[in-house]
């Protein structure tokens, strides 16, 4: 009958291989930053340009009615975590096929290839934070007491992305449609997450049921948590954070089981 592998030894094996995980992440960063002179610039250029465009449209062309001032700080505080999420969701679909040779020749717990993706993109996110700090300084945006929730936001997002990656990686390897589908989903997700606007905008303008439904998107609670580090008024309450935590943990559990179920099939295909 089918071979069953229990959850706990797998987690133990992952922990035992943390040195290898570090090796893979530092490899990725080395490739990203040292092999290209403009490596760092490239990595922050995209969120910066995106933020710049929205800043221009919403504050220069129009009278901004969404979010708070300084709007560029408001934007970047969610744009950088979005960049992390977006990069992980895209890269996890190739996490097993891109390095197929290594995956096929090493008996590591295969979840490591997804954790490596989450970790590398997280490092890039951290390296981009000084840009946010710089704009905050220039615009004299001050930190609030909510900045202590930053690690919580990172943790929730890490759990969420790991779960989503564990689901997407095997599915995208087996079904070529997944990648095309995700391109659309990611675009929609960008606009349905509080990036160019805040959760409070949704609550004040749409209110009631719509706002309740809106925070079912776990990124709503998570991005809101990041943003309150500069804008205390954006705090949407523990409800949104609780939902984000619930969805994230569920995603991780579903991810672990999906990955395990499809692992054998994926190994035959890559």
């Amino acid at each position, binding site marked *: *009958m*089918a*071979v069953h592998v229990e959850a706990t030894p797998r987690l133990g094996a992952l922990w035992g*291989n943390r*040195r*290898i995980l570090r*090796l893979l992440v530092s*490899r990725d960063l080395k490739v990203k930053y040292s092999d290209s002179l403009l490596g760092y610039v490239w990595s922050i250029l995209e969120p910066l340009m995106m933020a710049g465009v929205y800043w221009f449209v919403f504050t220069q062309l129009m009278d901004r009615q969404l979010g708070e001032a300084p709007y560029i700080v408001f934007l970047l505080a969610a744009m950088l975590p979005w960049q992390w999420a977006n990069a992980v969701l895209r890269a996890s679909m190739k996490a097993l096929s891109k*390095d197929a*040779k*290594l*995956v*096929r*020749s*090493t*008996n*590591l717990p295969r979840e490591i290839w997804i954790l490596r993706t989450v970790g590398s993109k997280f490092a890039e996110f951290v390296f981009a934070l000084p840009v946010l700090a710089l704009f905050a300084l220039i615009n004299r945006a001050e930190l609030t007491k909510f900045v202590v929730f930053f690690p919580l936001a990172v943790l929730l997002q890490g759990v969420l992305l790991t779960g989503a990656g564990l689901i997407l990686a095997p599915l995208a390897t*087996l*079904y*070529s*449609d997944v990648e095309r589908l995700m391109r659309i989903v990611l675009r929609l997700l960008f606009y349905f997450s509080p990036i160019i606007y805040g959760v409070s905008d949704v609550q004040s303008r749409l209110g009631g049921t719509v706002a309740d439904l809106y925070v079912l998107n776990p990124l709503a609670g998570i991005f809101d948590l990041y943003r309150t580090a500069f804008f205390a008024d954006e705090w949407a309450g523990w409800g949104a954070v609780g939902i984000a935590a619930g969805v994230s943990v569920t995603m991780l559990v579903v991810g672990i089981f999906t990955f395990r179920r499809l*692992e*054998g099939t994926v*190994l*035959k*295909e890559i």
Partner: protein
Amino acid sequence: MSPVIEADGLGIAFKRNRRRNRRLRDLASGRAERAKRARRNQFWALRDVSFTVSEGEAVGLVGGNGQGKSTLLKLIAGVLLPDEGRLRVRGGVAPLIEVTGGFVGDLTARDNIWLTAGLHGLSKPEIAARFDEIVDFAEVGDFLDTPFRHFSSGMKVRLGFAVITTLDEPVVLVDEVLAVGDRAFREKCYKRMGDLLSGGRTLFLVSHNENDLRRFCTRGLYLRAGSLVTDGPVEDALERYREDTGRRRGPKSTE
């Protein structure tokens, strides 16, 4: 002797057609229904294979192309998962199963050594201590900063063999590598494999060269069409293989 490898009713099935015709519907459908649909369209690369290997044994895999030898090595290496049965491997495995050892074409030889050795669990100081020896053995000293994809096939095999046999894993899998190197390198490989065996490692060797198999292996597993036909002294396995091929190829069979 304690068993290092225990295989019990091992089986793995592949899809017959290369096209990935899986549908999202398959995921939602029930186990029984899915199994029924799958059965029509699959073949068993290995089925009902059971054996036990003790520490320090040298096992040769015998059989024609496509009879399941490499698949069995991949299962032992843990890079394929069985659909049926149970496989227990105690301790780590150093697999040289894809001729290139899983090296990455775009990385230099130096980076590949660090990456592969690291992925197989060696720490930085351990790799540093063994680096020169690996380079010496593989004779790639002048090409350390050359991307791996520019290597000749002989160099690729040499580097793969050098790195994998440097690992400390108790089980070593070698698939069809000796055929690629030139005579001088083959001699070095023979010596290295002899050293591994006298060091108490367990060895799995796939080769079409009967002399290589006789030289190192005491035991032979003969695979035909995914089944384990013979498990015994290597000479018996070779004999059975010869009989089968002779019968098929012989111009005038008495049968």
